């Protein structure tokens, strides 16, 4: 199981802040996982089509689309930050 966390505008569009996805034993590229996320939440299609406007993390560390996600990982899909 991979736990996917969504934040701010991305969470609003998906109408959820969290979702779980099956994970093959060999893991899955982050790029593939985001396609599954779009398949489940079509409202995210436009946002996830522009990944350079997103910040991705695996287990709370910044990650990129070609990084590999393993079973049990926590993945975060985040819009640009606006703290401060």
């Amino acid at each position, binding site marked *: 199981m991979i736990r996917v966390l969504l934040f701010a505008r991305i969470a609003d569009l998906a109408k959820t802040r969290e979702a779980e996805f099956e994970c093959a034993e060999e893991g899955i590229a982050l790029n593939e996982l985001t396609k599954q996320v779009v398949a489940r939440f079509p409202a995210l299609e436009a946002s996830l089509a522009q990944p350079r406007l997103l910040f991705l993390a695996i287990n709370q560390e910044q990650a990129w689309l070609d990084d590999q996600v393993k079973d049990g990982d926590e993945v975060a899909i*985040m*819009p640009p930050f*606006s*703290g401060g």
Partner: protein
Amino acid sequence: MTKAVRIQTEDFSVEEETKLLHGGNGGMGGIVTFLGTARDFSKGKDVSRLEFEEYAGMAEKAMNSLRDTAMEEFDIIDMRIIHRIGTIQAGEQIVLILAGSAHRGAAFDACEWCIDTLKKTVPIWKKEITPSGESWVEEHP
């Protein structure tokens, strides 16, 4: 409540944080503080309140690493970073960064670098609530 890096819903005291930073450190000659407050007007619209959301865990980790980097890169003695989340009314305090050094130049540089970098690297998001609706602010693609 006295950790040097905190994310919290409650308000903070500038005076108290200043005293905690100074902490009787006799070598500290200058303290530079940045205090961010909620404006009531943004991009032509009245803003009645803000709502801040964080990635719990990662946001505090990013703020701690910000402080670690500042302590390494600048000639400062100590630094504190406090960010509020949740609902913040116009006029209220949002974020406080304090940098203390022997000589003031390093404290100015560290403090400004810290708020600039916080905005780009810490997973916190701001929603503006205006009379005509709500919208997430996304200024740093």
